[in-house]
């Protein structure tokens, strides 16, 4: 009886204190972060833009999202259908072709994304020689003068506008910005995450074990970080075909170093804390001590650094693209857009678009980073 009683008591004890999702210290940080309105809004704006750009194929594409042809529902955005289906001869259907469009219209319907261009779609119906101005700067007659039926052509719709004009290869700038934003942010995120993993573990090892490991690694890092990265990338780019992953790999070789200093310092400081000694006295193995007791301390410093490293990675990628040593030709990239702007000074929409998309993206990230840094500052009071 008493056993049952004590059991129910334990049960009651357990139920009464459900563990909150965030520890109190993290709740405080989240409150602090929210208190910084600029950073908080920047986070939301950035998240919305980023999530939208992840679905770039559904926003700007030269294929319909959905189509119905002869009673069959097709998803051209995900599946490549051969043109034979619609009476053509290409291996992959060109849905922008007026013949195919009429064929599908006659036997069903198509649902286009809001922008009917992908980043590599060449608009062959621009009203004047590329680069063409944004469509809203032309009258309707001029805008549609290259279509077969002029203003009455079914393709003369708002979906075929070039909202931000075209570049010098007649590709839609808006589509390229959307895809370019995605590739920049993804590149930055992957690079930052990978450098954080390598940098944090290397810094942790050095800080925790100290002694010879620390000494040797520190000297190695000193030599390693004195290599001029940009030149090295230029040299390697001349040998290896540049691509997303190769660029990422090369830059990863150098960017992890940024984390080592702070993490090492945190580990050096914290390894003599009494609770670490206490864990050691309990017989906790080194690996567990590092993960459970020391890493959370070092994470504050790392998280503070993260947004700035992210920004740095994006800027480096952009500058490489600007110089022409970055992503392979034809890839959507903000650096390449800037280069076009520089080459076509008489087409200001190129330079202006490149400038604004890049500066807005970087500013948002910096604002977020600033708010994160303040949120993790234990002495900061928001009043």
């Amino acid at each position, binding site marked *: 009886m008493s056993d049952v009683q004590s059991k129910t008591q*334990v049960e009651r*004890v357990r139920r009464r*204190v459900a563990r909150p999702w965030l*520890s*109190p210290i993290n709740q*405080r940080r989240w409150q602090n972060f929210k208190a910084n309105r600029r950073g908080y809004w920047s986070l939301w704006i950035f998240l919305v833009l980023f999530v939208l750009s992840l679905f770039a194929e559904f926003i700007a594409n030269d294929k319909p999202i959905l189509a119905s042809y002869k009673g069959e529902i097709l998803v051209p955005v995900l599946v490549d259908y051969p043109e034979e289906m619609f009476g053509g001869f290409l291996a992959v259907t060109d849905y922008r072709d007026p013949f195919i469009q009429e064929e599908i219209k006659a036997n069903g319907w198509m649902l286009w994304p809001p922008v009917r261009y992908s980043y590599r779609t060449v608009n062959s119906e621009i009203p004047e020689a590329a680069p063409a101005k944004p469509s809203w700067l032309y009258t309707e007659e001029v805008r549609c003068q290259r279509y077969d039926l002029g203003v009455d052509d079914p393709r003369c719709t708002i979906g075929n506008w070039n909202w931000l004009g075209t570049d010098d290869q007649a590709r839609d700038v808006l589509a390229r910005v959307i895809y370019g934003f995605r590739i920049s942010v993804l590149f930055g995120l992957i690079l930052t995450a990978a450098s954080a993993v390598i940098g944090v573990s290397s810094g942790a090892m050095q800080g925790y074990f100290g002694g010879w490991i620390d000494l040797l690694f520190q000297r190695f890092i000193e030599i390693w970080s004195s290599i001029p990265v940009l030149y090295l990338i230029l040299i390697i780019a001349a040998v290896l075909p540049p691509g997303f992953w190769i660029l990422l790999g090369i830059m990863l070789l150098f960017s992890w170093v940024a984390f080592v200093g702070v993490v090492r310092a945190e580990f050096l400081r914290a390894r003599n*804390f009494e609770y670490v000694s206490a864990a050691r006295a*309990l017989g906790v193995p080194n690996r*567990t001590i590092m993960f459970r007791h020391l890493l*959370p301390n070092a994470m504050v410093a790392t998280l503070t650094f993260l947004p700035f490293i992210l920004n740095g990675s994006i800027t480096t990628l952009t500058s490489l693209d600007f110089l022409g040593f970055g992503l392979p030709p034809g890839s959507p990239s903000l650096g390449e857009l800037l280069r076009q702007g520089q080459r076509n000074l008489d087409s200001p929409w190129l330079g202006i678009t490149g400038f604004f998309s890049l500066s807005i993206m970087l500013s948002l990230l910096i604002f977020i980073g600033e708010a994160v840094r303040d949120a993790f500052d234990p002495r900061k009071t928001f009043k």
Partner: protein
Amino acid sequence: MSDPLLSIRDLSVAFAQGEEEMLAVDRVSFDIGRGETVALVGESGSGKSVTALSVLKLLPYPAASHPSGQILYGGRDLLAGDEAELRRVRGNEITMIFQEPMTSLNPLHTIEKQIGEILKLHRGMGDKQAAERTLELLHQVGIQEPEKRLDAFPHQLSGGQRQRVMIAMALANEPDLLIADEPTTALDVTVQAQILELLARLRRDNDMSMLFITHDLGIVRKVADRVCVMTGGKIVESGPTEEIFSNPQHAYTRHLLAAEPKGEPPQADLGAEKVIQGDGIKVWFPIKKGLLRRTVDYVKGVDGVDVTVRAGQTLGVVGESGSGKTTLGLALSRMIASDGEIRFSGARIDERSFRQMRPLRHKMQIVFQDPFGSLSPRMSVAEIIQEGLRIHERQLSAEERDRMVVEVLQEVGLDPTARFRYPHEFSGGQRQRIAIARAMVLRPSFVMLDEPTSALDMSVQAQVVDLLRDLQKRHGLAYLFISHDLKVVRALANEVIVMRAGKVVEAGTADQIFHAPKTDYTKALIAAAFEIAAVPGGVVSE
């Protein structure tokens, strides 16, 4: 006392915490007369330091604010004064010495520069004048051979000397009021007695007033003319020292007076089973010099010490800081490398590697001094206590582990529902209980207690000592109790060894040591601890 020097009226201090305001000091009033020493006594968190800091407006404004009150000094209200006026008063008419002599001095400046700076700033003295006055001050505060110390940096001085330098800085401008915020808490008992005597002498000679903040009633009785007892931000009782001590009115004062760890040492049973035994333990730290880092000499942290800790008994290790007490304890529990034979339950353990020691760890546990530092701030209490179980009792299910945590929390006198909370939500005494629970959950046979009560308030100390005694009785534990506080040691230890500079000065049963000490050093320690009496130089460190 017709016209008080400093008069605090209805002072309140509030701190902003996010959206809420927390009242740290609640309408406190007291006066300090000319040439009088007033002590503010209370436990940590009672608001005594905050009260003192607000006299010079040294609180972190704007997070701190004063909802009410006046601080009248010479007819002026310091709270209403502007920054320029305060600067004239600070360091000139009212000065302050702090608890931590280690961090209150700038490590990059010499003693001469630090004291001279104040003289030049407030008095407009020239280099030569300032140097002369500095020398005079150092002499006054009892620094030996002050000429040689002028060029010393703070790290070259001992803790007591540093506190003397701090006092010299505070005295430089012949202040009317000296605020001393726990000036001796961080010092050894022997040094504490010397510093207190120095402060008393200087007050007499310079006709200063003193506001003395402390948690130690022994010190209050020694130095103060009047006492204000604070708790929860309020002064609950005030009056002349003798009156308060002989006839306390308020329940809290009585509680404080009753809280000192008391009791005669328990009898030693020399026949009990030996749990851990060390023979000729040596811990020498090499001093390396030159390009090839050759070892030229050693710092002898522990130099040939024999110890035996018996089941169900406590061995007290006492000595001043730097005497090697903690090093000895760490060597015995094999946390640091040492020479000499160590036997645990009869088996030799001194040759085992750190990894080989791991299976034995749950039998030998450590409780550290600082309950704020020894608990990981990012783990809940349950996680902290379970950590050892996860390693040594892998077969346990989560349910069983949880049950053991609940049991051990009850055993150390904490509410088991608190186990999902984080350490920062607990007071110092509760945290120390958690640290003890973490050690006890593994059912050890030997526990090393490294100054487990030093960071705690007096009344909490007694509770923790009672808890430790209780646990020892119930589980037959062997304690190695390291402390500089002889009062606590007397309450707990069966046997005592007195250490100095890595060597054992005196060893014996607690009875012998406390009632018939043989060496001068032990006698000096006991005098300093129980009577707060300074011993003429030479016997103890300065």
